[in-house]
């Protein structure tokens, strides 16, 4: 499916927002303004942003703990993210969620602390839409390391068995915490495992926003029309360390350099400029606007009050 000009600009802006926000949050974590550690996704922004491109607000996404791409992609704002990260009363959860970003009303579903615990839940939301006769689609995004979790296989089995409107997306960024993925993952590719369960799959360049968008749009369209699940694997690369405080050093510099050349944001901008739909003036205006949005969000989060400790007894049971 073709990526239209306006959509490309929207996704480009989101990718840049993700990159600048991650950089800013890293500073704030390091400066101990934010209590949690940060997990970022430098260089892999096109996957999370791109897969949300074809989604409606009513579609469900289960995202990852790494970076903000799918959350910004699905419509969360820097202000909403920062107020959660700060643990302030003004956050959507009044300080309860932290990194576990959530906004069910725009389809952002739980990010469990335990990797892979979303596999079953994603089956459940897809089963729910099917039983309710709704045409909503569920997207389950996870990393290549999480594909080792126990519920990975059963969720593929259930999705295939019941022909659920569920799109599995493996964000293969080549590093599982502090090691190259081939230390702990037996195969080069994850996607062919879907074939064993009778689910069609595709392996796609995850650093090309148009390809990510196009492959996801087709899978989502199939699922929406009742044609069952699909599995996409996007090849990308994590150019940052596992978390703030991880000194790194385990990624060869030459390897990082190769992926700098394939940077998804640079590639998208170059394409837009070559096609005459983006100018340097557009770029500067956008950067200034994003910087304003992020700084306003930081200010808002900094100035927001902490939640009242008396609220800890609220919503223990529904």
């Amino acid at each position, binding site marked *: 499916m073709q990526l239209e000009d306006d959509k490309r600009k929207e996704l480009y802006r989101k990718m840049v927002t993700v990159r600048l926000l991650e950089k800013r949050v890293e500073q704030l974590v390091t400066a101990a303004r934010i209590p949690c550690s940060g997990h970022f996704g430098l260089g892999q922004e096109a996957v999370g942003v791109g897969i949300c491109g074809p989604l409606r607000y009513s579609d*469900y996404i289960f995202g990852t703990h790494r970076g903000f791409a799918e959350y910004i992609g699905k419509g969360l704002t820097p202000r909403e993210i920062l107020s959660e990260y700060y643990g302030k009363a003004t956050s*959507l*959860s*009044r300080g*309860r*969620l932290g990194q*576990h970003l*959530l*906004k*069910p*009303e725009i389809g952002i*579903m*739980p990010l*469990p*602390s*335990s990797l892979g*615990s*979303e*596999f*079953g*839940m*994603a*089956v*459940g*939301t*897809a*089963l*729910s*839409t099917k*039983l*309710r006769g709704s045409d909503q689609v569920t997207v389950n995004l996870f990393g290549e390391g999480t594909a080792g979790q*126990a*519920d990975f296989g*059963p*969720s593929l*089995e*259930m999705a295939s*068995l*019941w022909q659920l409107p569920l799109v599995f997306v493996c964000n293969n960024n080549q590093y599982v915490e502090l090691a190259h993925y081939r230390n702990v993952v037996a195969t080069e590719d994850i996607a062919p495992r879907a074939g064993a369960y009778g689910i069609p799959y595709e392996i796609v360049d995850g650093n090309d926003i148009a390809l990510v968008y196009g492959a996801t749009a087709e899978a989502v369209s199939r699922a929406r029309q009742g044609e069952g699940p699909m599995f996409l694997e996007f090849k990308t690369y994590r150019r940052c360390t596992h978390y703030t405080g991880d000194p790194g050093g385990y990624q060869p510099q030459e390897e990082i350099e190769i992926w700098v050349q394939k940077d998804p944001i640079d590639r998208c901008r170059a394409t837009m400029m070559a096609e005459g739909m983006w100018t340097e003036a557009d770029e500067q205006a956008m950067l200034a606007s994003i910087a304003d949005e992020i700084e306003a969000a930081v200010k808002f989060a900094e100035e927001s009050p902490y939640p009242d400790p008396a609220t800890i007894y*609220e*919503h*223990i*049971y*529904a």
Partner: protein
Amino acid sequence: MNRRITFIQAVREAFQEEMRRDERVFVMGQDVQAGIFATTSKLVDEFGPARVINTPICESASVGAAVGAAMTGLRPVVQIMFGDFNYLAMEMTANQAGQWHYISDGALKVPMVIETPSGARGGAGYGHSQSLEAAFILPPGLKVAVPATPYDAKGLLKSAIRDDNPVLFFEHRRLLPQRGEVPEEEYLIPLGQADIKRVGSDVTLVAVSVTVHKALAAAEKLSQRGIEVEVIDPRTLVPLDKDTIFQSLQKTYHLVVVEEGRKRGGFGAELAAIAVEEWFDYLDAPVQRLGTISAALPYSPVLEAACIPSEEDIVQAVLRSLGQEE
């Protein structure tokens, strides 16, 4: 009009009534269409395979799927064939089902039931026999139902299905074929309301699930010796009806608690702690706790029976409480 029907029939009637009443209710689990312990048998004939779903053999993904469905507008009941297998799904139950309502500040609700036959039935072996209900007292956000009679089972399951929280519903396998009075007309039993199964004035005996029946038999024996035991069935461990137990204690000043779950870290430990913390002035004797020994349940029925509390153990515990041990 009261009839005498089995525990299984009572549970199945609860399913039928709730599934007719609310189309969001559905059942999933291994072999629920055929019904391995018959509680869900024939539901598929009335409600079809879309609402009575056989799942692959994976407890964690099945409970996970129920969590996802519950968060998005449905009311799943997932059956876990043996209570022991709940540990396979513990991550989804304890870390996910029970916690997202709170951590989302109420944005998400997880209205679901885990229906789980469990307990020692004599010769099922170490991994098909445990009573694990107390393991679900610790994680937050869950409710735990432990019915001992067909009447309680039906009324509690209907309430559990209508509840907006995840509820574990334990069915002791020795109780499944037992008959009891169940009215024709509809009724509900609220979660968190204990039932006094026998009135007495000398000792408060709190008994869980299958041990209610052993406690009643023990009470009859003790009555012949002039000791009147009040038998209280909490019916749900969470929420716990502390008021009913405390009112009884204010009369008897003696507390005994019996369960088939393991004694160490069990429900009795929790209740004894509550008693010394909150009701100390009403204890004339140490709290007596009975539960299964902290060992794997052996296969041989003779060994198994020696591990779990018996009617005679209960008699002796009551006598110890009164300082009349033999």
